[in-house]
């Protein structure tokens, strides 16, 4: 589904990713762990198409398509979703307005008619319930006045609504208390499907106790230095990053 080959990315002339390789298959959950500054969020940003990241070498294929040629909205239409680490507030734009625009743009890209209001509201209410979000949040401005936990849940709610093929969770677990983490993990597990893949970027083992990954990667200094099964996350938890990323 996602193939990253020898990806080099610079920010303001400074190399951050230095030859990253990754292969994610449909149905899989990959976890990417790594110390601060390893390039985890840069990877998420460059996949979603954020400005200011210069790809100097390598390629990214998403279902055979060159992802880097697409604008952020086209990547979304193609089935990519990024759950933001710091979701921004959008004053004056309600969650309903926002998701109506997003969903109908997705539908237009597939040649479908816009969703009518009744169907839209039914869908939004169903997914809000999945994330245990009060329906009133649909009419509030996007992320405005939301607590940190609410914002993260709102991200996963949006993911559930947009039904992506590949979801990237950029430190979705940070700032969540244990109850909110369980809600998020349950929602993610409910959305696991043979046609869908997840890339979970995290500092902590904690979320992986609730969402069992198929593959765990350690990202250090812009490269994946080790990959393994779920046991690698446990090993990290016990030993810390240093012994695992030092050259053998």
């Amino acid at each position, binding site marked *: 589904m996602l193939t990253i080959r020898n990806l080099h990315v610079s920010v303001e002339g400074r190399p951050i990713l230095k030859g990253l390789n990754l292969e994610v298959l449909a149905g899989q959950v990959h976890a990417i762990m790594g110390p601060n500054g390893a390039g985890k969020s840069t990877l998420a940003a460059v996949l979603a198409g954020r400005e200011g990241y210069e790809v100097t070498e390598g390629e990214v294929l998403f279902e055979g398509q060159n992802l880097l040629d697409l604008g952020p909205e086209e990547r979304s239409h193609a089935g990519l979703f990024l759950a933001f680490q710091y979701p921004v507030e959008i004053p*004056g734009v309600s969650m309903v307005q926002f998701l109506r625009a997003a969903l109908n743009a997705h539908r237009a890209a597939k040649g479908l008619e816009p969703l009518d209001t009744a169907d839209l509201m039914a869908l939004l209410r169903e997914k809000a319930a999945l994330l245990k979000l009060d329906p009133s949040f649909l009419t509030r401005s996007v992320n405005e006045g939301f607590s940190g936990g609410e914002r993260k849940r709102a991200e996963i709610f949006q993911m559930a609504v947009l039904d992506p093929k590949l979801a990237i969770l950029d430190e979705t677990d940070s700032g969540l208390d244990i109850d909110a983490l369980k809600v998020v993990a349950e929602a993610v597990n409910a959305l696991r499907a043979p046609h869908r893949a997840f890339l979970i970027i995290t500092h902590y083992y904690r979320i992986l106790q609730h969402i069992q990954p198929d593959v765990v990667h350690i990202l250090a200094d812009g490269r994946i230095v080790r990959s393994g099964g779920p046991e690698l996350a446990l090993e990290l938890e016990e030993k810390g990053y240093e012994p695992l990323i030092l050259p053998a």
Partner: protein
Amino acid sequence: MKLAEAPTLSLEAGASHLTEVLRGYASAEGLPPSLREAWQAHARQAHLEALFLDQKHKEDWKYTPLSFLRRPWKLAPPVQASPPVSLAFSGQAAELVLPSEDLPALRSLPAPTSVWEALLTPAASLQHYALSQEGYFVLAPHGTGELSVHAATLSVAPGTQAEVLVAPSGSGFLLVRLHLDAGEGAQVRFFLPAGGGAHDLFVYVLVTARLAQEAQVETYDLTASVGWKRSEVRVYLSGVQAQAHLHGAAIVGQGSVVDHAIRVEHAVPHTASNQLFKALVYKGGHSAFQGRIFVHPHAQKTNAYQSHKALLWEPGAVAYSRPQLEIFADDVRCTHGVTTGFLEGEMLFYLRARGVPEEQARHLLAQGFLEEVLSRVPQEALRGWARQAMGFAE
């Protein structure tokens, strides 16, 4: 003479010319003696004859482009004969004082809904003044390319509610002068819409309001791309627990000037005021905001808030913002916030990353920016009008 054919004066010559015109107007010649005195007092209060040249007030006009004064404005004939109107609201009944020759211009509005319908069809039937029995006052002058002056004094009886709509349309230079005396506990709302692409419309609205104890005034200034509009609102809170809530939302397009000049005076203890103004400025647009909060020495426990946000849509947009807080009491809470800037790239990226195409995302963000003000407009029809005029209708 059509505006397009008007010869161009220097700014000074244009301003002097206007001063002469207004001075003649302020002399109230040709008015019945019973009205002359009232009108002269009015004109003095409005500084009509010295509006644009008075050195004392020059600072207040510093950020307001006045190039339209280079036109040799002439008074529109029908308006020259138009006298001031005095209105008194008392309970559900209202009394309107007008000289007999103006009676044909008076329309009776049986239900408030028809007021709003009239607004929604600009340049329609409401030429001068109209009033319903419901406590609505409508001033909908339709400019015909020349200078016209419109004035009214409103006295709202204690405990009464009134809504005032000032909806200029057409073309030309319209001077609107309103004075409100709000009795104890009276509640008055001013709606000040203008726009819909009327680039040859120049509007100067000056509202003064004096509020007695527990009286409340709200203003909603909604401007969508006019040639030039200055809304000057001066509120004097003279009774305890009096409140002023002033709002403004403006789209300032190419060649358009929108200027808000606000002055709120807290003269006694325990009064509150709130200013919330937003302007979306496009290339070639000019927005100005001056907000003065003046707290008198004995006006303890004053609660005053002011916010002005200008969103510069693209390079070439201009916004001036001038908050002025003069506080002479020590036990008060006064806060203000002023921001001027471009659209946040992070917001745009967030929407695009969810699949919203860039142009649509920008449109949503523009609407969201003004929605903070629009959503507070307590008249659904006017809210709808504003969204439509600003290009946000769904």
